[in-house]
């Protein structure tokens, strides 16, 4: 029992240390982002468009495929319940609200955390253990500006965009199923959807995606930057990065949903 308490205490202290390091990394990232944005030469060198392509465009097929299937699945499930009471005309609104407020942003963030966040940790962690980061420091090149900032800006732009596209795709999946299999008239489906959706539903998703982007980049890069040792440690850090960002995304999502609609 005493041992258990000891473990818990140590884990808590590690958690607090990680949190404070993450804060400093975040502060430095924001600071260096301004340096980058205001310096034309450094901006060109950072390859922001390459990052957006790697993070955003290349995640697009996966995100869209998952989102459209999610839209279909939700429509199927909701129609089971509403069939009993004959309330098929509620389907479009229900699906749209659930997707825009909750499922779209959450699912997109989780996919990106697994695909992109893990890659950040693995890439930066490998650079750390092969002394590439120390080499950057020795050349008086700020590693945060060189490695973190373009990923930060890239994801801060890409994730909200991906989320919006995923939202539309999921609603479209629901629309296809509803109009072809449930016999809801296409024009009614579209009108119902637009009647129910509010502006808050849309922008809360953008805000959520922005917050998730910060979490994925900070956790992914931080885990990579603190790796010590060899390949095994890089693997462990990558796993830890996905686990902790997944957890943080779900916890913060709950809070934000509460804040927007509670």
């Amino acid at each position: 029992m005493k041992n258990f308490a000891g473990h818990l205490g140590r884990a808590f202290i590690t958690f607090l240390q990680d949190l404070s390091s993450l804060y400093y990394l975040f502060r430095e990232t924001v600071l260096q982002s301004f340096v980058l944005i205001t310096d034309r030469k450094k901006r060109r060198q950072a390859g922001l468009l390459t990052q957006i392509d790697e993070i955003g465009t290349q995640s697009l097929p996966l995100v869209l495929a998952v989102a459209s299937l999610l839209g279909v699945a939700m429509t199927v499930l909701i129609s089971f319940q509403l069939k009993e009471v004959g309330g098929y005309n509620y389907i479009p609104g229900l699906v749209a609200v659930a997707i825009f407020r909750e499922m779209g942003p959450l699912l997109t963030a989780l996919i990106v955390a697994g695909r992109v966040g893990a890659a950040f940790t693995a890439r930066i962690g490998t650079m750390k253990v092969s002394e590439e980061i120390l080499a950057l420091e020795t050349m008086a090149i700020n590693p945060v500006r060189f490695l973190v900032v373009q990923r930060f800006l890239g994801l801060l732009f890409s994730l909200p965009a991906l989320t919006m596209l995923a939202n539309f795709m999921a609603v479209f999946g629901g629309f296809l199923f509803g109009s072809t299999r449930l016999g809801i008239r296409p024009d009614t489906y579209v009108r119902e959807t637009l009647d129910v959706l509010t502006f808050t539903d849309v922008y809360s998703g953008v805000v959520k995606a922005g917050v998730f982007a910060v979490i994925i980049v900070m956790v992914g890069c931080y885990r990579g930057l603190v790796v010590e040792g060899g390949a095994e440690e890089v693997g462990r850090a990558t796993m830890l990065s996905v686990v902790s960002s997944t957890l943080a995304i779900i916890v913060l999502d709950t809070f934000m949903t509460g804040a927007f609609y509670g």
Partner: protein
Amino acid sequence: MGNSHMIRANGIKKNYGARTVLNGIDFIAEQKKITYILGSSGGGKSTLLKILIGALKPDDGQVLYRDMDITKLRGTGLDPFRKKIGMLFQQGALLNSLTVGENISLPIREHTPLDDNIIKIMVKMKLELVGLRDFEDLYPGQLSGGMQKRVALARALALDPEVVFFDEPTSGLDPIASSVITKLISDLNRVLGITCIVVTHAVEEAMKIANKIVILYKGAVLAEGTPAEIRGSSDPIVQQFITGSPDGPISFHASSRDFREDLLVE
């Protein structure tokens, strides 16, 4: 003569937990000279090197670059020092996502306002110094270990440093690649007047080109002098080290407890 040192270490101490790695290191690396720091593996050489380049803070002591104590500097305060030094890492530490040319141009782009065309010419000049002018567009992964180190050396020279630090420059290389690197170190010093500080366990190399050799043993400086002085030393530990003999005062047994007692304990 007071100002002829380039790098001077004064009483550097470093502990990792309860283990003392460096216990008061003093030495002087003179301007435009080649200083070799020799020591056995795990003897604190890498730690000392990290302290000399400001990547690690010692628990006690000073590192003077000319008259500037770099152990007092933090973060961007170290930048002026770092722009004056170059470092060749043990594995090269080239950025794998960039080509050879991009690796070398990186510090130039970062710290000078020079035009792309001029940078291109500079990169070619640096590559010519290490004999790899045609390799600009290859990625580090496409080069052999020895070539990677030469490219890394070209990158270390990118900003025309006053001092270049070498971490085990020849370890893991074949004999020919090793002598190429050793000759490069000697040429850089002779032709360009660069101060070289080499941390290694390769005694032969040190004897060939060093102006001064510092031998580390158990976290302290065991001997210091020209290759001839070191060769003539009467200290049996120094003799064992330079001849590489398995028998001598440096025991094959690294454990301090008596073997028989250790077996009888349980």
